[in-house]
């Protein structure tokens, strides 16, 4: 552990970790089990074309989410564009999206022929603020794309009520919330459809991929027909599906390990002044995946968030600012889109960073991160001074 400021890696010291501690989940099944799954796929020379492994994965995931239909696709973005294009029915208008979210959001709605209309978020779950959504809907609004966040989904009931009352279809991007619940009910059956990811950094590792869940028979049929008939090439291949399928079997274990890491961060950060671990909403009632540890960098912390991230990254702890800057102030905001003041999104985008997590971060690693952060706090003035000298 560091005994002096010059031992920090950012000032030339040896990094705390031998290898990078990433933020992605990167869960894998046993290699031999995966190879066994692959053998018949290669024996039959059947690598794609909505094969039997994709069909089995769809059945398992529909069961897991408690929905009638699961449609596996090449990746979550393609799935979202397919659903959005179907729901807007050829109309061009605006799609209501949260301003505090991942950078793909404004791009995805444009591929569906819509322009993003950024809305503010609420402080509890960081999802679309229902009041702001109700106010933002106008005659050009074609769809609401709500994003369920990893630490707290979003205010699903209120958003669904508005969507229904204002007669605007609502779709949930639940990529970050696979395994979470709302009102005690597993995500997957809310809105007209939900879309999940099979990217390696998410809860189910299928290398890359995604899937759509819905209870809407007609919508499911259209999406399946588009994918199967070759009107849209959105096929998931069998190698990816086989990996994801094995990861479904171990999902509970992965969530258990995530929660252990999260509790370790709770213990470590309890004694670190100025950094506040973001709490999950209504933990006693809801399911969460505990995939990530988000930390608010308050004004009692001696460094800026950006400098803190630099210090951690030099130690090979892959911290990142969380959804920063807010989308309407980022390079991802299309030219010509109105940029309103969205105070909550802007404040949250300045506040949080996330810390290493996933399968490559052990409980001991979390303890090391805690110790490092305590050291940084203790020597905050000197670190700040040296960072400023280096920058000059």
């Amino acid at each position, binding site marked *: 552990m560091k005994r002096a400021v010059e031992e920090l890696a950012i000032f030339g010291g040896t990094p705390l970790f031998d290898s990078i501690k990433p933020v992605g989940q*990167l869960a894998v099944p046993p290699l031999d089990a995966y190879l066994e799954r692959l053998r018949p796929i290669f024996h039959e020379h059947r690598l794609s074309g909505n094969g039997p492994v994709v069909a089995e994965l769809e059945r398992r995931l529909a069961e897991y989410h408690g929905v009638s239909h699961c449609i596996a696709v090449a990746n979550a973005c393609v799935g979202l564009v397919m659903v959005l294009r179907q729901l807007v029915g050829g109309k061009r208008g605006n799609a209501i999206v949260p301003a505090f979210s991942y950078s793909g959001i404004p791009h995805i709605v444009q591929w569906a022929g819509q322009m993003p209309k950024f809305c503010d978020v609420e402080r509890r779950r960081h999802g679309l603020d229902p009041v702001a959504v109700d106010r933002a809907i106008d005659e050009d609004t074609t769809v609401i794309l709500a994003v369920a966040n990893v630490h707290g989904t979003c205010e699903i009931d209120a958003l669904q009520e508005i969507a229904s009352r204002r007669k605007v279809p609502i779709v949930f991007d639940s990529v970050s919330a696979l395994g979470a619940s709302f009102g005690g009910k597993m995500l997957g059956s809310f809105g007209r459809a939900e879309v999940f990811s099979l990217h390696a950094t998410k809860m189910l590792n299928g290398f890359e991929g995604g899937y759509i869940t819905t209870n809407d028979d007609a919508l499911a049929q259209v999406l399946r027909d588009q994918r199967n008939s070759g009107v849209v090439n959105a096929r998931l291949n069998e190698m990816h599906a086989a990996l994801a399928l094995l990861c479904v079997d171990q999902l509970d274990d992965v969530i258990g390990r995530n929660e252990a890491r999260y509790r370790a961060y709770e213990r470590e950060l309890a004694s670190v002044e100025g950094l506040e671990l973001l709490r999950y909403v209504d933990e006693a009632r809801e399911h969460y995946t505990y995939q990530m540890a988000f930390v608010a960098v308050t004004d009692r912390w001696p460094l800026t968030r950006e400098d803190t991230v630099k210090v951690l990254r030099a130690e090979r702890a892959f911290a990142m600012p969380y959804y920063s800057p807010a989308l309407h102030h980022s390079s991802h905001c299309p030219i010509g889109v109105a940029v309103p003041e969205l105070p909550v999104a802007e404040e949250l985008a300045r506040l949080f960073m996330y810390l290493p997590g996933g399968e*490559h971060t052990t409980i001991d690693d979390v303890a090391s991160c805690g110790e490092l952060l305590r050291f940084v706090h203790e020597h905050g003035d000197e670190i700040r001074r040296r960072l400023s000298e280096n920058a000059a």
Partner: protein
Amino acid sequence: MKRLRLGQHYVPSWNVVEDGVRGIFERAYFANNGPLVQDLDRVAAEATGVPYAVAVTNDMMAMMLAAKSLFRQGGVVIAPPFLSPQLREALVWGGYRVRMLDVDQITRQLDPDTVERSVDGETAGIVAVHVLGNVGNAAELEARAAALNVPLIFDASDAFGAATSGRLAGSFGDASLVSFGEADLLNAGEGACVTTRSLEVSNRVRTLRNFHPGQTFAQMPLRMNGKMAEAPAMLALAAFADVTERIAMNSRRFDTYRRALEAVESLTLLEPVDEQANYQRLVVELAPSVGTASHVARCLDPYGIEARPAVAATDAKLYPVAGAMFERLLELPNGADIRDEDVFEIAGRLKKIAAI
């Protein structure tokens, strides 16, 4: 009953798959422009004789990103009527209107003179197809598009390895797309790449295929998750390593079809037109007396033989040449699992259908 499938369906040997998967697990690098995708970008460029290739999710994504990298927003894209439905949909997703132009009766490709007459102020670009695996008159269309200052993209998915006048498919126009679907010569399960001679175009496509600030090489207002993962990249690399052998197997099978179908007057096996061919698509032209390609495909189906019209459906009233191609050209199984006896079985069934 064994089903005789359309498509190539080549896979690498199991040892290659096992070693490749083991390597991916050891590196714990599954997606996001991993080391195998980077290798593939280099290998695909070399193999098509261009400096740059960018691997992406699949052929539809390749068309979405190539179009966005070259065509101005919201214009009209000229294409042949048999452009595949998913590539057409890719252009629609990109916000383009597609204007179909019938093809030339002899070359079965877009006619440069007709294209020139059709280009107007609304034209954003041209998408041409190396149809049935033939490069054909691509150089002529390329020169005409350049003179008109209209960007040109080729769908080279049927033609990887085909060449004319020493130039390989994948090297024509401002960019080409090569599919790595399981029906293609280069089978990665799913996947594709965009090939180009332009550093600027490659930088745009490389930027377009992801949202990450660290993977930004050009200012692109619209982006997408179009990344290829490591498993398909591993298979595509193995396919490039095996491609000479695969083409030789295709060529031998083609020769078997030649022998099996000779002396059947109502069926003409379409020979490649280029100096160098990949023999990926096995297509027979049916005499009108035999019936349409769709009809013959339905007749073969009960015998476990997959067949289909060799080009996508089109309105014959609007596009007589492409419409006739849809009606008269029949594609037959020509994949890794088709043995000589299967070829003779298929030919025998065809002869009986032709004789009725």
